[in-house]
Structures are given as C-alpha cells and as structure tokens.
C-alpha cells in the first residue's frame, strides 16, 4: 500500500498530460463542429417532442432551439479553452457540464464514446493540465510546472485500460467468438469497398476480425504500458481503429478519439521533445528548469477519495448486469455504461395499443405521431424505453379524458439476424409497471 502511494506520487514529466489536453480539446472541437454541421442539434434536440430521459434524471430537460445552440456554442468555446490551456479549469468544467447535460437529455442518443468523453472530461477537471504549454502559464508563469505526480497521467491511462479491457471481456461470448456475429452480418454490407470488399463476404474474415478485435481489446492497454511493445501496440491501435472506421462507417468519431487518447501511454521525454520542437519553430526556446508539483495534503486526500470512489464505480458498473437474470443482449438490463461497443445487431418493430378499460375499446398508436424515426428505432429494441413511451401514451390518453388507460405492446426483436421474435409480454399492462432498476419480468426470456 505504501509502495503504491509512493508510485502514485512519484514526479513524472507533465508533457503527456499536456499532449492529451491539446489533442482532446482539438478532437472535441472537430466533433462538435461536425455534429452541428450535420444538423444533429436540430434533429436530436430540437425536433423531438418527447425525450427519453434517464431514470433519476427526469429533471434534465432540453432548452429551446436558441438555448440548445447556446449550449453548443459554450462547448465550442470551452474546447478552444481546453486546447490552448486558457482559463483551463473553467473551460473543462463548463465542457463537462454542458456535454453531460446534452447526453443526459435523451438516451436514444447514448453512445459509449459520448460516455467516454463525459467521464474523461470529469477526470480532467481535477488534473493540472494547464500548468505547461498553456495560455494560463504564459499569463501567470508561477503556476508553470514540468513535473506532476504520476497519478495525473495514470488516472487517464487507468480509464483507457478499463475501456479497452471491459470492451474485450464483453466480446468473450459465444455469438462473437464462435459464430462471428454480428460481424458476419455487417461485413458483407461493405463488399463495395474498393480493395478489401470482395473478401467481406468470406466467413473467415469475420472470424479473423472477431477474434483479433477481442484479443486486441484485452491486451492492447497492457502492450501500451510496456516500453518494448509500445511502438507495435500503437501501430496496432492505428490499424485497428482505422479498420473499424472502414468496415463500420457509422462508428463516427470514436476511432479518432481512441487513437489520439492512447498517445498518453508514450513516456514523458517523447512528448517533451515534441513541445521543444514546437517551441523551436516559434523561435522562443527557453530552458525551463524542472519544477515539481506537489498537492497539499488535504487536497490530495480529498482527490484520493474522489478518484477511489470514481474508479470503484467504473469497475462495478460494467459487471452490474450479473445482478439480472436472462440474456444480457436480449434484455439489455445493465447494458449501457459498460463498454459494450458494436457488439450486436438488433432491430425491432413495436405496435402499441391503448385500451379504455371502461369500454374495452382499443386503439393502435402511430409511433411517428410522438417520436422521431430515430427515436422509434432505438426504442423498439430497449425495454426501458418501451416502458417510458408506454407511460407517455398513458398520460396522453389520460389528457384525452380516458380514465386509467391500459397500454400493451406487441413487440418483435431480431438479435444478431436470428429472426424476429416476441420481445415483451403482450398481455402486460405497461401503464401500471413502474420504472426503475428492478428486474423487468415482463421482458420475455430469449
């Protein structure tokens, strides 16, 4: 324990953290511009009439159109602040709050890489990433440091290890390894690729990519930790993520974010050389004497508890699914926030029926009347969203003057191309079921 403490406090070069700050700010800036340019602010946060909030976060509500654009404007300003290290602490805090706010608005838009961005920016709030090569340090040279305690870069590395390792663990399942699913379904869709295309119909390619990506996820963080394997590992990082981008074009910014993030595994002197070169280019190389950053005891103590708690949660969240019975991929109870990335092909169709118990008359709901096509698609395969939507319908029909409307669904889901089958018990009145983390016994077993 004492030894661990010593290792965490050991002074190391700040440079990897600085590179990380600059690259993170940069890639977030690019992501946000791309997000806005694609018109997704309107599509995802202005157009919908109903939002699938997270349980316990129903109070997180969208602003109007202007408000949403202001939030995105704030985020863009914050990413520039992060990149330049200008008013860093404010910038990273604003970024974390705005980004997390937007992500909490609607779980239809949940992506593992958005979650990753949220928690990395949370970690970065507490890191001294502005104490070198930053506008803040230029303005106030007294805060400049060349050395920081090892835990500063270590916390980001640990988070990356968690991401990769759990992503790899999640791939150890029979569909992925023994049947090469869902890659066997997805890869033929890319058979129009110029060179590799013709191979994408071959089963062995799906198996090769399934097995190697599993092995990659499980081992890459450790290969990045060792000096000897690091260059190969980083090459593998680039190849792997570029390949995922080629084969699964819908994957968005995730590959780029991961490639840039893993640079933090390179040692301090490597990063330092980069900054020296940049400074030389600007002709203002000044020999900075090594200065160490030591946190005050109380500050250190509270950070240790905070990070201890945080990482404990990070280790527990991905395995919380063990508390639920049934097939995880089918029920998705404990699926989110667990680094299950591109693990399954799932599609569904749901018909909602609302019934007036006093007359026994029944109406079918046209989902497009309440949801965007994208929300409908996401809702169709996820039980907690089906329940939320059922409650929306219940409330709408109460407003229309029907007492105690009953809501039932006929829901079909196909998992990994096995064909559609009934997903939810169609006799259960969902209007009477409560939301929450308890096991949903009205989800049929796979």
């Amino acid at each position, binding site marked *: 324990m004492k*030894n*661990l403490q010593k*290792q*965490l406090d*050991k002074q*190391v*070069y700040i440079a990897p953290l600085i590179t990380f700050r600059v690259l993170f700010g940069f890639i977030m800036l690019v992501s946000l511009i791309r997000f806005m340019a*694609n018109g*997704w602010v309107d*599509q*995802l946060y202005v157009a919908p009439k109903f939002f699938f909030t997270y349980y316990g976060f129903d109070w997180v509500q969208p602003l109007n159109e202007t408000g949403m654009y202001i939030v995105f404007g704030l985020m863009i300003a914050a990413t520039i602040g992060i990149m330049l290290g200008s008013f860093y602490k404010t910038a990273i805090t604003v970024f974390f709050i705005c980004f997390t706010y937007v992500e909490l608005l609607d779980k239809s838009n949940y*992506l*593992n*890489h958005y979650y990753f961005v949220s928690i990395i920016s949370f970690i970065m709030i507490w890191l001294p990433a502005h104490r070198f090569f930053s506008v803040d340090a230029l303005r106030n040279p007294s805060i400049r440091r060349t050395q920081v305690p090892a835990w500063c870069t*270590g916390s980001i590395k*640990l988070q990356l*290890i*968690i991401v990769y390792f759990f992503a790899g663990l999640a791939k150890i399942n029979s569909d992925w390894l023994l049947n090469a699913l869902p890659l066997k*379904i997805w890869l*033929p*869709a*890319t*058979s*129009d690729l110029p060179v*590799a295309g*013709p*191979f994408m119909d071959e089963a062995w390619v799906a198996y*090769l990519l399934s097995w*190697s990506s599993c092995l*990659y996820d499980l081992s890459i963080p*450790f290969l990045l930790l*060792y000096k000897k*394997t690091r260059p190969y*590992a980083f*090459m*593998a990082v680039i*190849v792997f993520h570029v390949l995922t981008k080629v084969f*699964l074009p*819908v*994957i968005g*910014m995730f590959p780029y974010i991961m490639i840039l993030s893993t640079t933090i595994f390179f040692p*301090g*002197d490597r990063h330092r050389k980069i900054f020296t070169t940049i400074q030389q280019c600007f002709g203002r190389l000044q020999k900075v004497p090594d200065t160490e950053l030591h946190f005050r005891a109380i500050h250190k103590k509270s950070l240790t508890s905070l990070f201890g708690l945080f*990482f404990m949660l990070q280790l527990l969240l991905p395995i919380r699914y063990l508390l639920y019975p049934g097939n995880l991929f089918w029920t998705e109870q404990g699926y989110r926030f667990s680094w299950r990335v591109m693990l399954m092909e799932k*599609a569904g*169709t749901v018909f909602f029926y*609302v019934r*007036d118990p006093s007359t026994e008359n029944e*109406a*079918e*709901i*046209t989902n497009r009347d309440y949801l965007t*096509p*994208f929300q409908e*698609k996401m809702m*169709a395969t996820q039980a907690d969203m089906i329940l939320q939507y059922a409650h929306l319908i219940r409330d709408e029909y109460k407003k229309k003057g029907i007492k105690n409307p009953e809501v039932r669904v006929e829901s079909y889901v*196909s998992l990994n*191309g*096995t*064909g559609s089958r009934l997903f939810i018990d169609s006799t259960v009145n969902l209007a009477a079921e409560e939301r929450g983390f308890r096991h949903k016994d009205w989800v049929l077993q796979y």
Partner: protein
Amino acid sequence: MDYSTLSISHTKTDKEPGAKLPGTLRLISRFFFILTVCLFTITSCEDEETNTGSNEFDRSTMLANYAHNIIIPNYATLNNAVDSLNKAINNFTSSPDTVKLQQLREAWYNVAMNWQHCSTFEFGPASDVLLRASMNTFPTNVDQINDNISWGSYNLETAGNIDAIGLPALDYLINGVGEDDESIVSMYMNNDQSENRKQYLADLAAQMQSKVSAVYNDWVTDGGNYQKMFIASDGMDIGSSVGLLVNELNFDFEIIKNAKIGIPLGEKTLGSPLPQHVEAFYHKQSVDFAVEHIKAIDNIFNGRSRAGIDSTGLDDNLNALDAKHSSGIPLAEAINNQFDDCISAVESIPDPLSEAVENNSTVVDAAHTELKKQVVLLKTDLPSTLSVLITYQDNDGD
C-alpha cells in the same frame, strides 16, 4: 491492482530501461504484427480479384434491375396514364356529358392503379416534388376543395392544400359531387361554379402531370439521369440506394397497413371505424387499390417487373446472405409467403371497404393482422439481415 500495474509502467517508461517482457505479451505483440501484415496483404495485393464466389452478391446489378426494369418503366406507364387523364379532362370539360364522365373515370382509375406501382420510390426525384403526398393524401378535404373552387384562386403547392389535390380530390370531383352521373355532370354545366369547377379539375390534372413528368424525366438517361447515381450508389450506408429503397419500401407498406386499412377500421380511434378515411372513398374500389399496392411491393421485393420477369432483387440479396426466418425457413421465402397471405386476406374483404369496416370488421381485422406480420418482417428481419439502417437521419453508432 490496476494502479500497481500502472505505476510499474511509469518506473519503466520514465526512468529505467525496459525490463524483460513476459512471454505471453511478446506472443500477443507478435500476433498483432503478423495480423497487421496479413491485413495489409489482403487489402493491397488482391485488387485484381473478381467477384466469382458463389455467395457473392452484386448490389449494383440489383440496383440496375430496379432502375431499368421496374422504376423507370413504372414511371413511364404512370406518365402516359397521367397524359391520358389530362386529355380525358379536357375532353370532358369542353362539353360535359355522362359518356365523357365515364371515360374520365376510366382514365382516373388507370392513373390510380399505376400509382400503386410507383408509390414506393419516394426518394431522389420523387421526394424533391413530394410526389407521394401530392398524389395520394387521403381522406381528401371536401370543404377545402369547395372553398378553393368558390374562391377561384388558390396555390395548389401549399401545405394547406395537400389534402385538396391529387387522386383523392379528383375522386371527389368525378364521383362524389352528385348522387348519380347526371347530377355530377350537371355540376359542370348548370351550376354557378361550373366554370371554376372545370378549371379546378384541369389544374389538378396539370399539377399531377407536371410532377410525374418531372420525376420521370429526372430518372431517364436523356433527362436528369438520376438512374446513374442510383445504380452507382451501391453501398449500404445511409443515403445509399439500397438503404433508400428498403426504408421507403417499409414506409410504403406501413401506409397500406395504417392509412388504407387500419385507420378506416378504427385503429387510431379506439375501435370506432372511420369509413370516410378509406382510399378512393367515392370510387368505392378501395380493396382493389390496396391489393394492387401489395402486389406492387411484392414485385419490388422480388425484383420482378410488371410483365412478370423476375430478376435480381432484395429476395436474392437475402438468399445470398443465407438469411433465415426465426422458424428456420429462408427469410425471402417467409416474406413471400406473407405477401401471399396479405393479398388473399385483403382480397377477401368485400368492396366497398367503407362499408366493410362497419359490417364486416372481422374480415378487415384479419387482413390488418396479416399486414402487421409483414410489417415486422420488412421492418425488422429484412433490414437487420441486410445491415440497412431503418432511419431517415444520419447518426453515429458504436
């Protein structure tokens, strides 16, 4: 645990020279090296390879079949039918009588039947002119039509007029403005608004003609040549032709289930039927049109032309992927069986549908159930095997 691993790495990376590597890690890193080399070899050396494998499927061949043998011929036929409709209207309005009214009805029926074979293709040129909504938004708004006629001035392109134009509005004007043929004809002769009414009839047909011919011309080689782009866009991402086709095929089939059968049956109104909401309410052959529409989508799914020539279609794509239904039979077969069940179930509804939804609701309900089963297959099984995204907007996934 993880922290200790982490800090060891710091010791190694920041100060000490690399320690000896554990054997397994060395093995894994070698594996990656070899894998990388393999992947580069695949992706760089084999570009001369041609698609000869038995399970390979060429989507551009399929798209070419859709463009050349289905979409363009169907638009061409529709375009001709709309031309004839215009002529019939001119003929009728020049000197209205019951014979010409009958000829006009036949021309209208011909357009309506042909429209069923084009309704699916609401992407590219058709979506530019909102063809589907302009052709066939029903129920038509009789008050709006009569207001337009009595005002004598209107803009048929506005959203407010979307339910006062197209086939349903024409249906009302030639079948619904009087009790019998004589009284309908008299509305175009001895009525204070007969001139305006004739003009409205002509304007509706002219609007239809301009939209349909614009779409047709956009598709053909010596016009906008959209077919070239359609065939070339043979990927599977959002906006690719297969994606557009499957999405719209789905949407169109749901129109049959919801708008054509479900809503008149009372699907949205707690079981109280809405007879006036059927397609072609005044013409009264709603079931015919619904059956023709299902047959049209059946043809499209199978890549079959209206002459019955079966070529490469989505069914072949599913078979090439060896797609199975949950019962174990091939998915394409399951979908085709369900098309048959839908057709026979809808065919057994006696026309007029507007009466059947009230007097014969069990038969209509049975048809509705068969249609629903097909919606599931088309919306869930088909896209999830083809890996097509059923969504109308671009979005990241992970």
